[in-house]
Structures are given as C-alpha cells and as structure tokens.
C-alpha cells in the first residue's frame, strides 16, 4: 500500500473516530436533557448565595436502588458565577456521568461534560465544542472531536477569548467541586499547558476539571497523601497547643507549620510558601506587592507541576485564585505540560 493511501486511510479513520466521539456526546446530552426534564426543579434545595458554605453539593432525587439515579446541585459563588451540576448513573455502584453548566458573572455559559475520565467543554449557548480531553497519568491529553454543524468557525483571537472564559469557568467549577473533597476523592484542576499565544497549537489547551480517586491522584501528584498528612498533623498540633488568637491566626500558623516541615526536607522539587511575580514567574520575597504565594508545590516530573492550596476552617478556594495559582506555575515552569491544582483541607 502506498504512503498516500496509508495517509488517506488514517485520515478516514480519524474522521470516523471523531464522528463517533461526537455521537457519543450527543447521546449523553440527550440522556442529560431527559434527566433534566424529569428531575430538575427550580425549588430544589441549594446553598444560598453569599454564605460561607456556598458551593456545596446538595444531593437530590434518588430514583431507587436498582434504577438510574440522578443528583442536581445549584451553587452560587462569591463573584456571582453559578454552577448547575447534574450527575447521573445507570445503576448504583457504577460511575457517575456529570454535566456542569457554569454561568459566569457576565452571563457566559460554559458546559463541562464528564464521562469516566473524558471531559468535553462546550460553549453553553452555541453548543460549540471548545476542548475535549482525557485524563491520563500524564495529565489532560487532548482528544479529537467533530464540531457541530451549526457552529461557525471562529477567528483565532475570538477563540482565544472564549477559551480564556472557559478557563475562568473551570476555576469556578474547581472551586465548587473542591468543597466536596473527601479523604479519598479530591477535585483537581488540570490546566492547559501554556499561556495562549496567537498561532499556538490548539491541542496545547487541553484542560480537565473534576473529582478523582486516590489512585489517579497518586499517579498525577505522588506526594499528595504526604501533603495531606503533614497538613493534618500540623493542624492537630496547632489546635492542641491552643496558641492562636482566632481562626485566621490558626490558619496562618498551620500554613507556616506545613512550610517549615516541607522546607526542612530540603527537596527543591517539593517546596512551600513560595512567592512569585505573577507576570514573569520569577520568585520574589514574602510580601512583595502584587506577588502570588503558593502554599505547596510538587514538581514530580519535568512535565508536571502540582500546586496544593491549603485551607483551614470554613475558608474555601476561590475560583480566581485557582486560575492564578496554575497561571503562576505555568510562568515559572514554561517547559512543563501539566499543571494540577488541588485543595488540601488541613485537619480533614
């Protein structure tokens, strides 16, 4: 077979694969629409806007032990973003499929559909697919997709702006999902590989937001359990000592205590309480005006940077900070391809 024929054959296979992927998503959308029409009620319980527990899951609507199940939650964040989450599964003890619709403060809607470890990100109004990726042990790998017939091609700058909105929406979703972290299941925000530059390859912008189990977490950020254990230990020590004035002081002392332990390990790929210039990615001293401070940073492989944000008490990771954290890490490590943000709740 000639090389030309091989290439054509490969192209045909790629087209068929993307068509199949698109159909699979279409089927999921129909299922989700069906669930929505049956299950969603505007009066379902939700965490009220402005409260400290805003962004927490509210389980709703179990169909029964042997039938399809669904849950919905509507969360409002401090900046006015809204996250409507729908989770469905065919049977108990099977994985949930999820659809999260994030409405930004300006009304921009972005939809995150997750099935297993594959996530599709769409424009919530046009249905246009903005990105599709699969979570692997190396991070978010871009997957091929076909565009819906009704969506029009965008100029690259327009696409970049839309993608930037999707990034902000991802931060909002990560903030909400982090509020549901458990001991063995945590939300992660796998950010795109690089800042957008006109002419940059489209597949550099794969990202993934969702909750993963301990196995996946261990593959991506091998020291996550260690970070959690240190945070728990320090929080317990500070609490037991009673040597704090208020919850803010408690939080400060926990942060510094965690950093003391991690710095004492003298591992340059595992560092804590580092301040960065958010524009250049250069390190700066503590308290530098406009600097961004990362709680703990793990650099397990040249390709991967894990950023841990420690929380105590009722504080939660704000969506803007989630984006800023990974953005700072991107600038510091421009050759890395995978940036992962994880919230660690001390004393969980």
């Amino acid at each position, binding site marked *: 077979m000639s090389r030309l024929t091989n290439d054509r054959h490969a192209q045909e296979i790629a087209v068929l694969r993307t068509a199949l992927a698109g159909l699979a998503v279409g089927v999921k959308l129909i299922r989700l629409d069906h669930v929505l029409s049956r299950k969603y009620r505007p009066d379902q319980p939700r965490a009220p806007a402005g409260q400290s527990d805003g962004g927490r899951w509210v389980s709703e609507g179990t169909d029964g032990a042997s039938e399809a199940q669904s849950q919905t939650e509507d969360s409002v964040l401090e900046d006015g973003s809204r996250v409507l989450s729908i989770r469905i599964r065919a049977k108990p003890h099977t994985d949930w499929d999820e659809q999260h619709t994030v409405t930004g403060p300006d009304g921009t809607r972005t939809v995150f559909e997750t099935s297993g470890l594959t996530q599709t990100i769409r424009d919530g109004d046009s249905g246009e697919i903005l990105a599709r990726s699969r979570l692997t042990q190396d991070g978010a790998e871009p997957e091929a997709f076909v565009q819906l017939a009704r969506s029009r091609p965008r100029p690259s700058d327009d696409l970049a702006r839309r993608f930037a909105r999707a990034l902000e929406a991802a931060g909002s979703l990560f903030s909400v999902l982090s509020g549901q972290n458990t001991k063995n299941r945590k939300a992660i925000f796998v950010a795109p590989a690089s*800042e957008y*530059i*006109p*002419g*940059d390859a489209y597949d550099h912008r794969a990202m993934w937001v969702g909750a993963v189990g301990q196995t996946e977490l261990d593959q991506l950020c091998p020291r996550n359990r260690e970070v959690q254990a240190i945070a728990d230990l320090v929080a317990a020590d500070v609490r037991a000592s009673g040597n704090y004035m208020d919850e803010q002081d408690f939080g*400060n*002392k926990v*942060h*510094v*205590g965690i*950093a*003391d*332990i991690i*710095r*004492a390990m*003298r*591992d*340059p*790929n595992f560092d804590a*309480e580092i301040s960065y210039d958010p*524009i*250049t*990615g*250069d*390190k*700066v*001293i*503590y*308290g530098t005006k406009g600097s961004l401070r990362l709680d703990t940073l793990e650099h397990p492989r040249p390709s991967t940077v894990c950023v841990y944000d420690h929380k105590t008490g009722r504080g939660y990771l704000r969506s803007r900070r989630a984006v800023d954290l990974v953005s700072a890490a991107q*600038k*510091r490590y*421009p*050759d890395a391809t995978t940036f992962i943000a994880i919230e660690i709740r001390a004393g969980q």
Partner: protein
Amino acid sequence: MTNARQVREIFKPFARRDENWKEMRLRFLLRMPVRHISCGIFIERSSNPDSFWPSLVANALFYSNFRNEIRIGTYSEPLSRTSPSSTACWLWSDPTAICDAIDVITTYALPKLSLYGTIEGYSSLLDGSQRFYSEPLEDRMIVYIAAGNLDAARTIWHHQQSRRAGKLFPPGSRAHRWQMQLATVAEPLMAGDRPALAKILHDWEAANVRGTELEPYWEPTPFPLER
C-alpha cells in the same frame, strides 16, 4: 512579623566585625566584594510573626535582561536547624534560635558562599550533585560560557535551540528571555569568539547591576573565559 531589629541579632557577629559583610535592607547580609555573583544570607519571614527562615543565596549577575531579586538568587539553599534538641522551625520565641542561626551560618553557609562567589565555584553546581541547583539549561549555558567551557555551552545550545526555535513566547516571560539568550550568543559561541562572548556577558552584567542596590559594591572583573 520578623523585623530588622530581630534580624540584626543574627547578622551582628558578621556585619560589625568584618568588612567583608554589608547589612542591606530587607533582611539581607551581603558578602563583599560583589563581582560576577552576589552572595549573602537572607532571612525570610512569613505570615506567622514568630517564624523566620534563613537561606544562603548566590545570584549570577551576568544573564540576559535578568534583574533578579538578590535575596532570592539564582541559587538558594534553606538553612536547617542543627541543634539536636530543636524542632524544624526557626522561631524568635525559641531562646536557642539566634545562636543556632549564627552557628549554621558560620559553619555551613560561609564556606559554601566563599565557593559559590566565584565563577569556578559556581560552575561546580552544574554537575548536578547539588540538589538545590535547578537553574534552566539556557542559564547553565551562560555559566559554562563565563567559565570558558564552550563545548559544554554548545551542547546545551544545540539541545535547547531545537526546542525554542520558531516558537512565540510572551515578552517578559522566562521562556522569552531564554530564547533571546540563545539567539544572542549563537554566532560567537559557534565561532568560538571569546572576546565577543565576554563583551556580551559584561554588557548583560552591567545592565543588570546599574541602578540597583548592588552597584556601589560591584567590581567589574574579567571572566575566566577571558584568561
């Protein structure tokens, strides 16, 4: 919050007895003279007013367009407590902490700073045995050039040029600076033109130092490359 008065207690034995040390603002003790690499001890603070952390710092001054914070350095190593009875933490409320800090600086940090303050000593970091040295390859290439090891610099150039060529990086970003560094040294490095390379490094060093707090203490000198 850690303040100058507290830090002075640690710096006092060095700054007041030895002309080779200059106490700078923002909790930094600068080792004199400053030639191609500034060296010193930095006391970092944190959100806990009782907590501090000393580091030994070396800062290569001859990279392209790189006015790096001298307290952060291009090489920085946190100093751990040595007292067997102490915890990992440096706390002002611990009566042994100041003595311990002075001891660690004297016995551990000063010999290292003496070594890393020279191009020859600093380039010993490049062999990878120092765990805290994690400078990017494009900056290591410049250290090799300064040390006169052009073969090692060329190896890095060829490796990194293939990664950076044709790509667009935002101006001001680290990757953009590395790209510019590769482009500037390309021709004289390939030609083995030592005087041209030395001029590039001298120009960068002067641009990085002039107008900064280091300038009064800076002594321009030839690079090993020029010997």
